[in-house]
């Protein structure tokens, strides 16, 4: 199995989860209030105050086969607003 880590602005969280659902992921976990730096932007904690939003970190454990479908679904969102997606190996305990 695979582990997918998505990090992007929490303002796209609802939309992202919809896209993941439509790719029929078996489940997901969301952690909000992440900050960070990417190639272009720095995300500070106070951005939650200004309504700009900090980052969400979403983890999906799923089968390898699902990855392409997920990718097709979420790529436009990540391209428009930024955000990263990385895959690692994982196996159930």
């Amino acid at each position: 199995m695979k582990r997918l880590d998505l990090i992007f602005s929490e303002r796209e969280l609802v939309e992202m989860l919809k896209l993941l659902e439509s790719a029929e992921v078996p489940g997901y976990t969301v952690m909000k209030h992440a900050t960070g730096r990417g190639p272009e932007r720095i995300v500070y904690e106070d951005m939650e105050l200004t309504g700009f939003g900090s980052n969400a970190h979403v983890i999906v454990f799923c089968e390898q086969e699902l990855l392409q479908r997920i990718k097709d679904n979420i790529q436009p969102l990540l391209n428009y607003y930024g955000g990263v997606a990385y895959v690692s190996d994982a196996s159930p305990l």
Partner: protein
Amino acid sequence: MNTNLILQNVLSPPVLFFFLGTIAVFVKSDLEIPAPLPKLFSLYLLLAIGFKGGLELEQSGFGGQVVPTVGTAILMSLLIPFLCFIILRLKLDVFNSAAIAAAYGSISAVTFITAESFLESQSIHFDGFMVAALALMESPAIIVGLLLVKLSSNKQRPNAKKIRWRAILHEAMLNGSVYLLLGSLIIGFLTAAHNPASVQKMEPFTGKLFYGAECFFLLDMGIVAAQRLPSLKRAGSFLIGFAIAMPLLNATIGVLVAKALDLGPGNALLFVVMCASASYLAVPAAMRMTVPEAKSSYYISTALGLTFPFNIVVGIPLYMGMVNTLFIGAS
């Protein structure tokens, strides 16, 4: 006389706590107000000024200066972005110019609140309907910002991101801050009209507590503003100059318009402060969606790191001085 007003302003608790916050950052104290506590105070302040504004609006009704003032305020929030855009285009690209222009056309609720406290400390009267103007000035500039991008950049946006008007209008009108402010205003209005006994029961929360909560929030705003300064420095001297000069210019225009509207000195100050202040609550979220090409650090940092402190500390008393001079000189 202006120096005196500035000194009086600087020695008031809200501004002193703002300083305490900024100094904490400069001396690298580990004082911090962890998220989401600042959000608590920001929600509270919006709810409270909205509610109080609604109460007073019900008292005053919609006659007299209400409609002309609110209408002109909205007009200002549509025109100021054009002026800003022209100036910003001297050095910046279309996307950044439009985003910053939208921020300066919109308003800063916390600056408004601080101006109200200043007026109260000077025992100068102002009207509740100004809060309605505040709520209605927040969004229009966002639309103008988007228009500016659309008009100027068609060729510069090769893989043309189709502008999603619906989404953006939604973002502009239903942004959490705008929504809470307007909603509380309406609730205040309805309560005053139909449930006067409840007004008294809300008073300790929305009234008595307000000044202290404002101080606490400004402590945090001092920290936030000071943390923003480095990224403003990186943005260069043009933007730094803009963040000081533009409020002064907008304030000057605002004073003249306020005079033309024949506002009282209290309402005039609030009107000027709305013209001179820049948004860091509703606009950033909308700009991110509309103009992802713009650098968020530009439009957040100018509004929050420099214009906001400038207005809080010297702007408000300075504008008061301008109002006094022009209004007394004329009468």
